[in-house]
C-alpha cells in the first residue's frame, strides 16, 4: 500500500511507530519513563515474535511433522534438546552436559579444517602467492607483505619488542592504526545511516498526516 492509500488503520499504526520512535529519541535528553517503556516493550514483543517463529517454522517443521510422519529417529535429538532444560536445576544440571557435548564436539570437529582453510591458508596464499611485478600492483603487493608481517610481529608477545623486532612491530602498530582509522570512518557512515532512516520515516509520516 503506497502512503497515498493509507486508511485509518495505517494512520494509527504509523502514528504508534512515530510515537515509539520519539520515545526512544527522548533518551538523548535524559533517561525517562517513555524511553524505558519503549525499551521494555520491544524486548517483550521481540521475545514473543521469536517464540512463535520458533514454534511454527522450526519446531513444527523439524520436530513435530517428522515425528508425526513416522521418522522416529528424530526422538533422539529431541530428547537431547529436552535434556538442555535441566540447566535450570542445580541437582540435574549435569544432564545438560551430554547435549552440550554433542553439539560442541560436532561444531569443533567441522570448524578445524574450514577455519584453517579460510583464515590461514587462503590468506597466506593471497599474501605470498602472487608475484611481485615492477608496477603499481607489484609495489602494493610488496607493501601488503611488509604490512602483514609487521602486524603479525606486533601481535607476537612471547618476546619483548626490542631492537629489530621492536622496529618491525612499530611499523605493525602504524598499519593497525590506519586500519582502525578506516574502520572508524566507515562506522560513522553506518551510524548516520541508521539515524537518517528514522528521520526519513518521521518526515514521511508528518507529510502524510499534514501534507496529504
Amino acid at each position, binding site marked *: 500500500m503506497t502512503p497515498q492509500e493509507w486508511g485509518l488503520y495505517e494512520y494509527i499504526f504509523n502514528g*504508534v*511507530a512515530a510515537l*515509539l*520512535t520519539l520515545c*526512544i529519541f527522548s533518551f*538523548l535528553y535524559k533517561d525517562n519513563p517513555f524511553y524505558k517503556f519503549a525499551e521494555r*516493550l*520491544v*524486548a*517483550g*514483543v*521481540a*521475545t*514473543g*515474535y521469536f517464540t512463535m517463529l*520458533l514454534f511454527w517454522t522450526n519446531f513444527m517443521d523439524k*520436530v513435530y511433522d517428522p515425528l508425526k510422519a513416522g521418522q522416529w529417529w*528424530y526422538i*533422539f*535429538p529431541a530428547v537431547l*534438546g529436552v535434556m538442555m*532444560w535441566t540447566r*535450570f536445576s542445580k541437582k540435574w*544440571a*549435569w544432564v545438560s*552436559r551430554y547435549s552440550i*557435548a*554433542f*553439539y560442541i*564436539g*560436532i561444531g569443533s*570437529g*567441522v*570448524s*578445524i579444517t574450514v*577455519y*584453517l582453510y579460510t*583464515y590461514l591458508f587462503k*590468506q*597466506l596464499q593471497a599474501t605470498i602467492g602472487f608475484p611481485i611485478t615492477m608496477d603499481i600492483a607489484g609495489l*602494493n603487493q610488496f*607493501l*601488503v607483505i611488509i*604490512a*602483514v608481517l609487521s602486524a603479525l610481529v606486533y601481535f607476537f608477545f612471547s618476546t619483548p619488542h626490542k631492537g629489530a623486532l621492536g622496529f618491525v612491530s612499530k611499523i605493525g*602498530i*602504524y*598499519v593497525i*592504526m*590506519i*586500519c582502525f582509522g*578506516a574502520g572508524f*570512518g566507515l562506522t*560513522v*557512515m553506518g*551510524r548516520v545511516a*541508521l*539515524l537518517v*532512516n528514522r528521520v526519513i*520515516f518521521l518526515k514521511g509520516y508528518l507529510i502524510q498526516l499534514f501534507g496529504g
Partner: protein
Amino acid sequence: MKREIPILIVGITGFAMLIQYFIPTDWSEFIFTYSQDWVIVIGIIAMPLGIWSLVKANVNKLKVPGERFYSAVLLGGFLIMVLTCLKEESRMAGSFHMDLFNYVLVPIQATIFSLLAFFIASAAYRAFRARSILATILLLTAFLIMARFIPLGPISIINLKIDAWILQVPNMAANRAIMMGIGLGATATAMKIILGIERTYMGHD
C-alpha cells in the same frame, strides 16, 4: 561420569567430524549430514531456554515496586505477540501479529540503534584528538575515509583513489594479520576442546 562421558562424547564426535572431511564416502556424508540435522533440532528445542529465563526474571520483578510497571509492559508485549499468533496463518504478512512486528518492533529497534549516530559524534568530539603520533595517524585516516562523502570536485577523485588504496593495502593487511591470528587461535581452541583440555563449556559442578 558426569564429566568424563561428556568429554568422551566431545572427543569422539569432534574427531569423527574432523576426519570425515578427508573421507568423501557415502556413509561419511550420511553421518555428516544427519549430525548437522540433529544439532539443528537440539538447538530448536534448547532455544526456549533463553525465552523462559527472560519471562521468569520479569515475572519475579512484578513483585518489585519500581520495576513492576516495566516488567508488566514486557510481559504484556510478549503475551500479545504469542496470543496473536496462535494460528499458523497469523504469522504471514498482513496479519495483526506482523503489523505489531512492523509498527512496534521495527521502529523501536531501528531507533535504539540510530542513537549511536549521536553517541559517535559526541565520542568523536570528546576523544578523537591528535594526542600522539598513533592517534594522529588514526585521525587522518578516518578523515580521509569520511571525506569520501563530501563532493569536493577534483579533490574528491584523488581522495577516492587514496581511500581505495587505504582500504585495499594497509587496512586489508592489518585485518589479514588479525584474521590469521584468529584462525590459529580458533583452531587451537577447537583442538583443545576435542582433546578434552578445554572444558569450560561444561560449567561447574
